[in-house]
């Protein structure tokens, strides 16, 4: 109880409250503009959070992400353009509802279900995370090595259509993580005599380069021929939300629970949660033929799932220090720079901080309702901001943000290099998620491997002589085999598909 009170005193301060509000407004703005994602919002927010205490920093990121996902539904319903990938699955549904004159109901359902899903996710997180942490406290470096490796491997499998390209992305991320002084032997790796690389490559320019600069490179050329955006007027938002919610209450709850579970899997983020939840909702529906034609049943379930998955991603992040998605990877990076290493010990050593994080989650999700209402009312104004103004401002913000972490111009070069690489990767279907997870998890994998190898005096069988380590090792080997087999299969299928389509083309 004293932990809870202490947590409450940490959360209910003017500073934290103002940060939650400001970050939510920032997330609202970023999510509502098509092409600016929740991850990009987080990457742009990190330079500012570097100067905050751990709790306000996490509060800012959690609030901005949750709000960005919700705001991403607005351009989807109004313009048929999903604001974030997490909204893509039900964009057609929401737009069809809008054409039937129910755009207010569609957006009202989005906001309310996101809030409910988010709260369900937090409740599951707060209930299960400490219990898993109690179990995980017995883990040694052997289990952590396999767990981190498994986290990386799963991220590859679920990150895109091509696991082979996901694997290459992850390996490139691991190389980035290895630059600088080796933590065990103190030797310099891949620094090539450059003093700026001695301390390694800072996470911040990598994040900004990968998620902001690469997107700017992709989107800025389109600003020269902008399509006119004319959003419709939203009448009576939230009308009929209560009765529709009651009708599909099972779908909302199922979406929340499913989203949390999917979010907790490494690499599976809000977009995958909403896709799966929508598919499950359709499967269990009594009227599956209505899906895609302006029917709210799939929309409520998927809206609930994508926000619940944000909370779910914090289960592996807080308990094991293994990020569940790119946003939690960023949070782990932020915490590490502040001297806090997420893991089971955090639940005993810093219980008030953990409880305060849970409280922040609840507050950020409750705030979705009033701010979401405000966003729907002001949608016309947000969507009418020209990207020709926005993108140059974001570029300048990125440059100063990359410089801010270490006050080093060299970090701006890193940002530019990684941004160009991120653009090339995105153009060629290389997912960037595994790369950022690898930058965070690379040192964890390596340090635990070296710790175990030193402990066992070079005996590799020590990695599998404990039952949990053995199970994790089998799972990791199985996942890696799948990555290679799927990569080879994808290569075999491509020419066959090409041959099959050629006669039709002719």
């Amino acid at each position, binding site marked *: 109880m004293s932990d809870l009170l202490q947590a409450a005193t940490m959360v209910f301060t003017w500073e934290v409250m103002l940060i939650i509000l400001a970050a939510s407004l920032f997330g609202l703005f970023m999510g509502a503009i098509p092409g600016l994602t929740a991850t990009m919002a987080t990457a742009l927010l990190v*330079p*500012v959070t570097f*100067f905050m205490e751990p709790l306000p920093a996490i509060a800012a990121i959690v609030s901005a992400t949750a709000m960005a996902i919700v705001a991403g539904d607005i351009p989807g319903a109004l313009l048929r353009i999903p604001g974030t990938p997490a909204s893509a699955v039900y964009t057609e549904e929401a737009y069809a509802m809008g054409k039937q004159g129910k755009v207010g109901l569609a957006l009202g359902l989005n906001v309310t279900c996101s809030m409910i899903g988010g709260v369900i996710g937090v409740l599951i997180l707060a209930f299960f995370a400490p219990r898993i942490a109690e179990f995980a406290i017995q883990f040694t470096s052997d289990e952590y090595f396999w767990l981190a490796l498994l986290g990386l491997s799963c991220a590859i499998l679920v990150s895109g259509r091509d696991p*082979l390209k996901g*694997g*290459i992305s992850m*390996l*490139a991320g*691991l*190389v980035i993580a*290895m630059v600088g002084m*080796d933590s*065990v*032997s103190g*030797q310099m*790796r*891949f620094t090539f005599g450059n003093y700026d690389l001695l301390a390694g490559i800072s996470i911040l320019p990598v994040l900004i380069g990968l998620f902001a*600069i690469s997107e*700017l*490179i992709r989107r*800025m*050329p*389109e*600003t*020269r021929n902008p399509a006119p955006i004319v959003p419709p007027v939203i009448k009576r938002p939230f009308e009929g939300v209560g009765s529709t919610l009651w009708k599909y209450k099972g779908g909302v709850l199922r979406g929340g629970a499913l989203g949390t579970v999917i979010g907790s899997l490494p690499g599976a983020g809000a977009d995958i949660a909403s896709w799966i939840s929508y598919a499950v909702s359709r499967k269990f529906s009594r009227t599956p033929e209505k899906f895609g034609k302006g029917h709210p049943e799939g929309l409520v379930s998927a809206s609930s799932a994508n926000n619940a998955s944000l909370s779910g991603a914090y289960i592996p992040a807080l308990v094991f220090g293994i990020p569940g998605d790119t946003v939690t990877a960023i949070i782990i990076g932020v915490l590490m720079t502040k001297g806090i290493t997420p893991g089971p010990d955090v639940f005993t050593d810093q219980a008030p901080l953990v409880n305060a994080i849970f409280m922040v989650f609840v507050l950020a999700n409750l705030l979705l309702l009033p701010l979401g209402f405000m966003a729907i009312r002001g949608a016309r104004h947000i969507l009418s901001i020209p990207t*020709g*103004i926005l993108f*140059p*401002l974001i*570029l*300048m*913000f990125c*440059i*100063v943000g990359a*410089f*801010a972490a270490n*006050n080093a*111009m060299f970090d*701006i*070069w890193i*940002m*530019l290099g990684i941004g160009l690489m991120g653009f*090339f990767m995105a*153009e*060629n279907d290389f997912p960037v998620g595994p790369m950022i997870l690898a930058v965070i998890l690379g040192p964890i*994998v*390596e340090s635990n*491997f*070296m710790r175990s*190898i*030193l402990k066992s005096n*070079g005996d590799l069988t020590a990695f599998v002589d404990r039952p949990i380590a053995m199970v994790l090792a089998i799972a990791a080997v199985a996942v890696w085999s799948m990555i*290679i087999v799927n*990569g080879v299969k*994808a*290569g*075999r299928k*491509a*020419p066959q598909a*090409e041959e099959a389509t050629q006669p039709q083309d002719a």
Partner: protein
Amino acid sequence: MRTNDKVTGVVTAAFGAAVIYASLDLKNLPRQEYGAGTFPTVIGALLILFGAILLVRGLRNREVWFAWQHPVPLITFIMTLAAICASIVAYIYLTPIVGFPVVSFVLLTLLLYTFHHRRWLPAGGIALVATGVIWEVFGQLLHVPLELGLLEKVIY
């Protein structure tokens, strides 16, 4: 800009080989077969393996070597990319000499003029306000050492 898997496969494998080559000089820990070079060597080997699989895939399919698949013309893209890169490089080299406020104002004005309505006055106005906001947030609030440069002599 889509590149054939043959090209990306070769680049990946070459990168893996370079990683292994750069790890050759790293010494093992005393009385151990493992050390600072172990992980980079494994990663390099996997990059070569994955690159080889990608290369084989590229040889099987009949895609062109390079393809431009964007709705905007290639020349527009190249000009925009050049503008972004030039802005970043100009910031790096000019800020220590001229100072943040001048560099930020000039770069933003040029970018806003180019990418928005091609009118100097609104572009300059927005650039001035944005530079002021970034200066206040990062320079004053977060204490990031943004240099005043030329303005230092004017103000002090």
